[in-house]
């Protein structure tokens, strides 16, 4: 089992390296550079091409791409993402607060989504084929089909414009106190939760049904174990295992999934920072955010794998045989 875990870990490192190369190449093929965005039309109107080239040289934009990549990567592996191109500001300073804000929003969403999705999925699974299941299934399909920005806009119109309970636009600062952000996070959180609950509850429903049909549940029933005990003590825990991977990916994806909702509400998170970094061609910031996202996905997936290995005796024995 230990060997399997080491193998998975090494594979994850390789994946991260490939992601770093891919993100770097993706930013390289984008047209223009940070200086191009930095200079205004007014600047350009009175500058010569030689002036612009001199500035480009001063900023190190004429250094060959492979050198820039390995310089960045050697820092990134020890947590130093370097500095921004134009302003020479440490990237850690730029992404620290947006990262915390996004993690906070992600945590709120996850904490609400998981139990709600679990309850809905289990309810639909238990009464599969009946009216409750039909209602839940239809509702979740609708919830899953509507894009976040549509849900967000509708919520804004209802709860910020018509009934002014919440702000339509979040104007809190990047460094806002967590409680200040919490107070204005309800609409963005609900926007994301609707889609996520719909998605996860369908997965959990399928897992629940599969477990309910399994041999050990049948044996428990034949042994006279009360139905409530079967559901709470056996089916519910067992039905989580098939969805662990999906849940891990979901949790890791919460951050990247927040980009849309952060844009709609102006939430000061990592998504807005990423959009801005792409717009301003601050490739080191883009690389850092993309790299962090990739690390999160890989680590969560790794944890899910370990959890499955540890929790599921079938997988454990299969891994041991190999």
């Amino acid at each position, binding site marked *: 089992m230990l060997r399997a875990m080491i193998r998975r870990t090494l594979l994850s490192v390789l994946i991260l390296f490939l992601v770093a190369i891919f993100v770097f190449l993706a930013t390289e093929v*984008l*047209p*223009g*550079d940070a200086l*191009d*965005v*930095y*200079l*205004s*039309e*007014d*600047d*350009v*109107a*009175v*500058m*010569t*091409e030689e002036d612009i*080239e001199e500035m480009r040289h001063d900023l190190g934009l004429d250094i060959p791409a492979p050198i820039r990549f390995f310089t960045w990567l050697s820092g990134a592996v020890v947590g130093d993402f370097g500095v921004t191109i134009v*302003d020479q*500001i440490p990237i850690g*300073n*730029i992404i620290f607060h947006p990262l915390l804000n996004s993690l906070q929003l992600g945590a709120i969403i996850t904490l609400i989504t998981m139990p709600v999705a679990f309850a809905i999925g289990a309810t639909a699974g238990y009464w599969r084929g009946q009216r409750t299941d039909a209602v839940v299934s239809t509702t979740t399909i609708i919830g899953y089909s509507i894009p976040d920005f549509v849900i967000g*806009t509708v919520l*804004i*119109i209802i709860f*910020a*414009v018509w009934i*002014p309970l919440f*702000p*339509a*636009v979040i*104007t809190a*600062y*990047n*460094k806002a106190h967590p409680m200040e952000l919490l107070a204005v996070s309800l609409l963005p959180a609900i926007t994301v939760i609707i889609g996520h609950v719909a998605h996860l509850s369908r997965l959990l429903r399928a897992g629940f049904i599969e477990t309910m049909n399994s041999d050990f549940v049948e044996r428990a029933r034949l042994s006279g174990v009360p139905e409530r005990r079967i559901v709470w003590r056996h089916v519910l825990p067992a039905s989580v295992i098939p969805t662990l991977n999906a849940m891990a990916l979901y949790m890791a994806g919460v951050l990247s999934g927040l980009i849309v909702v952060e*844009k*709609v*509400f*102006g939430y*000061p998170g990592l998504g*807005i920072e990423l*959009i*801005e970094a*792409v*717009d*301003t*061609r601050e490739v080191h910031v883009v690389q850092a955010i993309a790299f962090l996202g990739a690390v999160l996905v890989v680590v969560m997936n790794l944890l899910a794998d370990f959890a499955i290995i540890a929790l599921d005796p079938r997988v454990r024995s299969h891994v041991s045989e190999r």
Partner: protein
Amino acid sequence: MGKYKNPSRRDVLIGAGATAAAYSMGDLILPNTSLAAMKPKKGGKLTYAILTRNSKHKSLKTAKHPYQGIHIRTKNVYNALTWVDHDIQAQPEVATKWEAVKDDQTIWEVDIREGIKFHDGRDLTVDDVVSSYNFHRDKKKGTSFAKKMLAKVEKAGPNKARFFMKTPNAEFGWWAAEYRQVIMPAADIDKIGLDGIGSGPFKFANIDPKRSVVYEANQDYWGEGPYLDNLEVVYQQSMGSAMNGFRAKQFDMILGIDPAMVPQFEKLENTTVDIAKAGSQMLAVMPKYEGSPFMDKRVRQALTLAVDRQKIIDIVYGGSSAWLTNDTHMADFNEDFLPRGVVRDVAKAKKLLAEAGHPNGITLPTLYYSSYYPEIDRVFQVMAESVKEAGITMPIELKQKSGYRKWRVEDKKKTRKHRFAMGPVGPRNPAANLFRMARPTYNESGYWHPNPKGDEFIALYKKAMATGDQKERRAVYHEMQRILQEEVPTFFIIGRRSIDVFRSNVHGWKAHSQSWSGKFDTVWKS
């Protein structure tokens, strides 16, 4: 029912007199309540949303610096020597007077206003002006306009500064109003401006360098106002979110809205939509290298004659929020603006194309543009459709804004040619406007130079800059515009007017053609 009788001239005169008398008596009997209500009220906070942000905004450490604030409107915190009013006239601010002391307009003396205090209580002196301009003209840290034009600045008296320009500049007053060229307390070049101390109507209170700024009133402001206690600027990434914020009453004002949104805002209660006299223009760079159809002047002339600009104004700008360009950088509110003799002439355009060897019409290279303005797609679609009438097929393509400028110009080694592409133009004074076509090395004219007419244009520009008399200068400007209208080195598509929207309880604000020149000194809320 009585029979209607046409009123006689006598009846009309008697009626008019009675109405006038009643009106004046009314004024005597009842005080003018509307005027009383319009007396500025002190207090309150105004929040305005902006949709474009200073490309030089940086970290919290530098966010108070006039070059690096979230918004290029430095007027909230700082004063410059002059400012440009709503008619694009230079007006005194820190300077009370400026005059050329050499006939060729290269040396200017400026009288500095007495009694101005910085936010930290220090008096603003001529030393601060000299120090600020030494920073503005610094090769590495300065601002483009000052670096390009200012050779030296010195103290010439207790309240007088002397400016030595690199070349003649008859429009010093406008040059001194450039939004970055503000006056800061004297300090070393590495430190000046970083503390955010200005002499303007508001002081910095809170900043998030990427999202918003809150200002508080400067109670010791030397001019009228400010009436507001606080002013907040919030950057919004999209028009949709700005409108949501406005409808939810989070914002009192949005600056620079999409013309297509005007009808929606007009439907909202207690909302004022204000359209400035002018705003930015869109031009198309026409490359003039061997093999380009634009080498032939007749093709260029045909293209500008074929565009139905009025249709663009009617369809995209609701008939009012744009103006007819004159194929120069001048805006229609410039006193020196010379309208084109013919706005549109499809028959002449066809004739010119036939003479140029295209009797059956012409397919032009793709015209590229980028999302500088929210309505730009619609402008280009209507334009491309309208030139078809003259037999011109003009494919259009939207390019991503980031990297657009670098992409559309040639590379350093000239292995890639520059492209037929759109560029934006801000509204400025004639000298700044016409300078852009007087630069042989600048891409915007599509490398019209060297060219006999181009040489004549440059000579006229130099003459205008050395001509102190405004009327004489205007004659030169007209001559320069005639050259551009005949030669069409660059083709101007449309001029758009800046549009601001605000609640009806906001008073004293007027949309400014130069969005960076609007001032909140005398704005108040009822």
